[in-house]
């Protein structure tokens, strides 16, 4: 009765094997490494970069243990931190000739020491959270109301312009919070305006009313449009943050959406909070200016002559100088959107720009006067300007215009992104920050590891002393549980934090519950005079229902924590929940397998090694289990 069919043993062996492979990378520790990634969207890290890095390292007499190119970043692993630092300096010199304008980010990092065959099986170690490795953690709140207000304002001015263009007279447009109010003198104008809004402003919903001699039209941004807007604002802010953080030279920054209107930024290894904050909070500005097309300007641009008075020299991304006038026509404030697309006539990539009413008016005036002349778009960061593009004006521009010609699809995408990155879509504010020093992180790892280890040892000693061989089986099952837990967390590439380690320790304590339940049941059956084989069978069978019940209730608590927790609580909840699920396998299915393997073959089993089974002398009711 206590035998497993072969397939059950096969399942156990397979699970153990998979668990072992995927938990293994965590035990190799980490080695110092240098990571090279692109600092600009126009730069690619590829095989050519790899050979450049190889040569540079060889020239410096450094030999990396491992050089991998993966997902746009190159990592060179070294044996000692000394070599790592030397390699970083070497690469910094070779790859980044001008520190003011870095094409690559060369950063120190830690990579797993696990052997290549494990990596080729996609077995990676768990990612350590900031509280374990040190770094800065920010929570940013995006001001969505601000984003919507801004959009409503731009709708209001668009409406004003459109009404004027279409000859709808006698209107007054005003923004009231997030709604736009339009007053008309006659019903005909109102009807015309309504039709116009329906046609051209599909994101607006209108309601009209009449009071006295005034007709009033109230336009609101449709909820789905508002949602789309918020989503886009958040995405754009994340993109902008990405660009800025690249500059910090952080190996693995985490920039994630958290909830509807928050962004989490984690910068492992960064200690200088002030600098990080400065970079996060910086606003890049976009400016549009005319190119100086005078003879002197031309000369300065082509042959490097003196820059004429009233103009400035800026470099394009490819290093070509452009001489632009100092007068700023329009700033990024007036640019509402920039999207890549395709020109329908020439089928060439293009970037569509949308200006607000003021920007559109200026564009129209400027383009009329400067037909066939060039206009430069500059982006300023840290007071340093760079020309994104300088196309020539080929017609009268207005609210919407496009930049096209001699661009690839990627270039168009990049340009649109850079134009948009000129300003954050919505203002942001840091609402939480945490800095963990590297020594504190190392402390936390050690303490967490110690609590798990000593807790495990204490339970093991107790179980073996109290339940003898069955206690040993339980302890092995517990070890398997821990291994599976680590394996699953590694497979999910979950981030391990200190609360996560605490949950691991707690998982050990909760998992042993099932084994105690089983062992106590088996003893009880023996006490009531059941034969050893029958006792084992009944013990496992009867304990199962109870184990299921208790695990489900614990799981309910875990899921509630997962659903409503944030940050550290979530890390705890994930490990807690997975630990409960793995314990069902290890404590019941696996430990039964061990017991069956040991005792199942013995037909005339007389005793079971489960510690003392005490029998009361009198026939007390406590043990009055009838058959």
């Amino acid at each position, binding site marked *: 009765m206590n035998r497993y069919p072969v397939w059950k043993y096969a399942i156990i062996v397979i699970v153990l094997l998979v668990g072992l492979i995927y938990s293994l990378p965590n035990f190799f520790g980490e080695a110092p490494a240098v990571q090279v990634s692109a600092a600009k969207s126009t730069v690619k890290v590829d095989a050519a970069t790899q050979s450049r890095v190889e040569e540079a390292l060889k020239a410096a007499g450094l030999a990396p243990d491992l050089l991998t190119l993966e997902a746009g970043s190159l990592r060179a692993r070294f044996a000692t931190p000394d070599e790592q630092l030397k390699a970083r300096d070497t690469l910094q010199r070779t790859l980044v000739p001008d520190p003011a304008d870095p094409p690559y980010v060369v950063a120190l990092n830690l990579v797993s020491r696990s052997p290549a065959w494990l990596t080729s099986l996609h077995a990676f170690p768990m990612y350590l959270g900031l509280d374990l490795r040190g770094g800065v953690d920010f929570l940013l709140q995006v001001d969505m109301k601000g984003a919507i207000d801004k959009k409503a304002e731009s709708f209001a001015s668009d409406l004003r312009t459109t009404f004027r263009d279409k000859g709808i007279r006698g209107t007054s447009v005003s923004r009231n919070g997030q709604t736009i109010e339009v007053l008309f003198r006659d019903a005909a104008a109102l009807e015309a305006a309504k039709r116009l809004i329906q046609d051209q402003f599909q994101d607006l919903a209108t309601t009209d009313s009449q009071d006295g001699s005034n007709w009033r039209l109230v336009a609101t941004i449709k909820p789905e449009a508002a949602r789309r807007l918020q989503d886009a604002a958040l995405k754009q802010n994340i993109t902008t943050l990405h660009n800025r953080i690249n500059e910090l030279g952080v190996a693995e920054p985490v920039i994630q959406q958290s909830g509807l209107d928050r962004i989490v930024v984690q910068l492992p290894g960064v200690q200088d909070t002030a600098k990080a904050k400065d970079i996060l909070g910086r606003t890049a500005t976009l400016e549009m200016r005319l190119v100086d097309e005078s003879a002197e300007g031309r000369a300065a641009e082509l042959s490097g002559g003196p820059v004429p008075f009233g103009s400035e020299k800026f470099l394009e991304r490819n290093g070509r100088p452009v001489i632009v006038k100092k007068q700023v026509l329009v700033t990024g404030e007036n640019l509402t959107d920039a999207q890549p697309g395709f020109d329908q006539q020439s089928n060439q990539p293009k970037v569509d720009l949308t200006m607000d009413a003021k920007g559109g008016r200026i564009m129209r005036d400027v383009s009329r006067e400067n037909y066939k002349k060039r206009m430069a778009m500059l982006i300023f960061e840290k007071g340093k300007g760079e020309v994104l593009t300088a196309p020539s004006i080929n017609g009268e521009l207005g609210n919407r215009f496009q930049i096209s010609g001699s661009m690839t699809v990627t270039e168009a995408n990049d340009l649109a992104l850079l134009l948009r990155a000129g300003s954050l879509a919505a203002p942001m504010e840091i609402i939480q920050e945490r800095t963990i020093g590297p020594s504190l992180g190392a402390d936390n790892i050690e303490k967490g590891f110690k609590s798990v280890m000593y807790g495990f040892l*204490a*339970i093991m000693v107790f179980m073996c002393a109290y339940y003898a061989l069955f206690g040993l089986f339980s302890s092995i099952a517990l070890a398997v549980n821990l291994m599976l837990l680590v394996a699953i967390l590694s497979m999910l590439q979950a981030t391990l934090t200190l*609360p996560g380690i*605490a949950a691991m*320790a707690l998982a050990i304590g909760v998992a042993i519950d099932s084994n105690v339940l089983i062992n106590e049941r088996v003893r009880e059956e023996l006490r009531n005079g059941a034969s050893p084989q029958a006792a084992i069978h009944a013990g496992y069978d009867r304990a199962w229902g109870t184990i299921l019940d208790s695990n489900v*209730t614990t799981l309910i608590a875990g899921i509630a924590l997962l659903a409503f927790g944030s940050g550290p609580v979530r890390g705890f909840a994930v490990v807690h929940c997975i630990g409960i699920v793995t314990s069902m396998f290890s404590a019941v299915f696996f430990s039964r397998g061990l017991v069956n393997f040991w005792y199942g073959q013995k037909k005339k089993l007389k005793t079971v090694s489960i510690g003392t089974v005490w029998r*009361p002398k009198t026939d007390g009711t406590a*043990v009055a289990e009838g058959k």
Partner: protein
Amino acid sequence: MEFFRIHKTIPFMRHALVLNIISFVTFALAVFFLLHRGLHLSVEFTGGTVMEVAYQQSADIGKVREAIGKLGYPDVQVQSYGTSRDVQIRLPAQKGMNSDQQSAQVMQALKTVDPSATQRGIEVVGPQVGEELTTNGLKALGMVVVGIMIYLAIRFEWKFALATVLANLHDVVIILGFFAFFQWEFSLAVLAAVLAVLGYSVNESVVIFDRVRENFRRYRKMNTVEIIDNAITSTISRTIITHGSTQLVVLSMFFFGGPTLHYFALALTIGICFGIYSSCFVAAAIAMWLGIKREDLIKGGPTKRDGGSEDDPNAGAVV
């Protein structure tokens, strides 16, 4: 080894009334302290700045306090953190000054007293995060309670569900009462521990009620009180051993886990101790007052037992 050599059924329910009064008094005290003293909420809930500062020698907390006191912050807390060389400083959120200026000012003040002071970590939380955490914490608690009640009501019966949840909420309130009385810091980790304990100690009640159901089937002549007594007696050794082994790990966290896990482990310890007590004396007693009967658990009468056992995983093997 066998710790529990119990000859006779222990009449747990004989003193149910007295014990319930004790429980009620403890509960009332906990509520009193919660209301009177309130929880000492961590910076995650209240907003503000927490700095961890390390010294080369043992830090003189008094001097640190004095140095910061001169800066004129109204409600500063200074305590040693883990070792005697590490100090934790809590500053309330200050209007008109950002956290950087605040921490720089404090560090400067500390360095003039002892130049070996170095900042190990800093945490700044805005006030809006705290409010959200509180509501989310309450939501999580609500979801756990409702979830467990629904599950138990399906698996057993509503009287058991209610008894279990009441008993365990009593535990939760008592844990909170302890934190209020001793003014221990109530952090997010402690909140997680409280909810984990809630899920975990429901196990105990489940185990006992499982046995109650089994006994109702088996011993037709016993009355309800005898059945409950018997169920608790036959599961008591298991209850204490499982909780004991969980406690071993929790103690390991308490001693080796450092300051971050200190209160987490403490909350778990109180939860585990009261978990044992409440599942033996409170849950079963409430179920008894609610008037559980054989018919509540065994539906359809004894003749249909075999037919009903198929969808009942608790029926187990018939020996």
